[in-house]
């Protein structure tokens, strides 16, 4: 019996581990993230700096279409800040009285502005590459935050003999090492309003924190709720086990 139990447990553990263990050849720099462990929360200051980077750099090519400006309250912006920021962005705003599409200032309820009206326009403006939407990018890549960090910091001169195609750039982390995106961030690209030092490493770290929040805005609430629920269920398991012991106390089995 005992061997069987351990065998079975091993079997299931192996099956569960097998699923995400799909081949992974690229080395990724492993970073420390404020949000990674079961009790971790988003570093809101970093996320706000990351948002500044998104707004000044990334948003020129990348959409964030599953977010609305109102969502920014999640990284600690207050209602007035959000309103002011949205008011500075021009978004499609229904039709005018003649039925022609018109534009207007965004409101907190508006979707984040997309830089291109559709994927064809995006491809035409970017040498055939379509800049992916960033709403879920952290979840949509093997390696998550470390991968995005790796891309942002992975630009380098190609090794000897490596031929980089026209309009492509060498990147250590990108699969195949040839990426359409020119290096978006360098030391000092964005001057932070809060005066934080703007090394490439710092900027990459901040924007990845922002994008991680954008992909999983519920994560902090989820984990905090999870701690309470798991504790309650463990307590309940103890209780039901005690009841079971009592009920079975006088049965020989």
């Amino acid at each position, binding site marked *: 019996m005992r061997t069987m139990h351990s065998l079975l447990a091993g079997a299931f553990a192996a099956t569960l581990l097998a699923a995400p263990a799909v081949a992974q050849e690229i080395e990724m720099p492993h970073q420390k993230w404020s949000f990674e462990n079961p009790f971790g929360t988003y570093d809101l200051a970093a996320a706000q700096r990351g948002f500044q980077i998104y707004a000044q750099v990334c948003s020129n090519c990348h959409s964030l279409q599953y977010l609305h400006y109102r969502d920014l309250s999640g990284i600690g912006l207050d209602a007035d800040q959000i309103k002011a920021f949205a008011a500075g962005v021009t978004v499609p705003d229904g039709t005018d009285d003649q039925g022609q599409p018109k534009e207007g200032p965004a409101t907190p*309820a508006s979707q984040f502005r997309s830089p291109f009206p559709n994927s064809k326009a995006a491809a035409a403006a970017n040498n055939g590459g379509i800049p992916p939407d960033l709403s879920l990018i952290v979840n949509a890549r093997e390696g998550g935050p470390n991968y995005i960090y790796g891309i942002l910091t992975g630009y380098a001169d190609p090794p000897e003999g490596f031929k980089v195609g026209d309009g492509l750039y060498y990147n250590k982390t990108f699969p195949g090492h040839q990426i359409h995106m020119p290096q978006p961030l360098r030391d000092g690209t964005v001057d932070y309003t809060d005066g934080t030092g703007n090394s490439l490493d710092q900027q990459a770290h901040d924007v990845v924190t922002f994008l991680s929040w954008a992909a999983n805005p519920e994560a902090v609430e989820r984990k905090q709720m999870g701690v309470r629920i798991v504790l309650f269920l463990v307590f*309940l398991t103890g*209780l039901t086990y005690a009841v079971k012991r*009592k*009920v079975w106390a*006088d049965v020989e089995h």
Partner: protein
Amino acid sequence: MADSSAAASTHPGPAGEVTKRDMLTLVTTAAVAIGVGAVAWPFIDSMNPSKDVLALASVDVDLSPIEVGQGITILWQGKPIFVRHRTPTEIKEAVDVPLASLIEPQPDSERTKAGHDQWIILIGICTHLGCVPLGNKPSDPRGDWGGWFCPCHGSQYDTSGRVRHGPAPANLAVPPYAFASDTKVKIG
């Protein structure tokens, strides 16, 4: 709890043990009840308006194209909102009517904003059974009191949106709104 005591009675033991088991079962059952109750809330709450619905709770209206005597209907929170630019006669009628003769007495001043009494803004839903009354288009019948006429059951409203003829029991509701300028109003 009857089950556990009944089960206990079939296994007679020391009296203390029976109470202990009862107590334990009671605590466990209570914990399960709390757990089930707590689980029900996310399900129920998921049916409440979601964040995107709540975020659209206000709408801005430009009043400048509405000529005197005309009205427009706009959509706010999925409901028709009547905005009418009243003529001086209509305003006078609305103000002068003796309150005692109304079904739901309410002065016109409570239904408009001071300084903007040419504008009457109403939720265009008949207080009887929820139809949209006629009267906002020039071609519509406006009823005997020059306001709105509900085609479903014949209720009639005056130029202040107050009910003057049943079966509707109450005046047309006034949505929360504020003037941002003389020609811009924010509803909600």
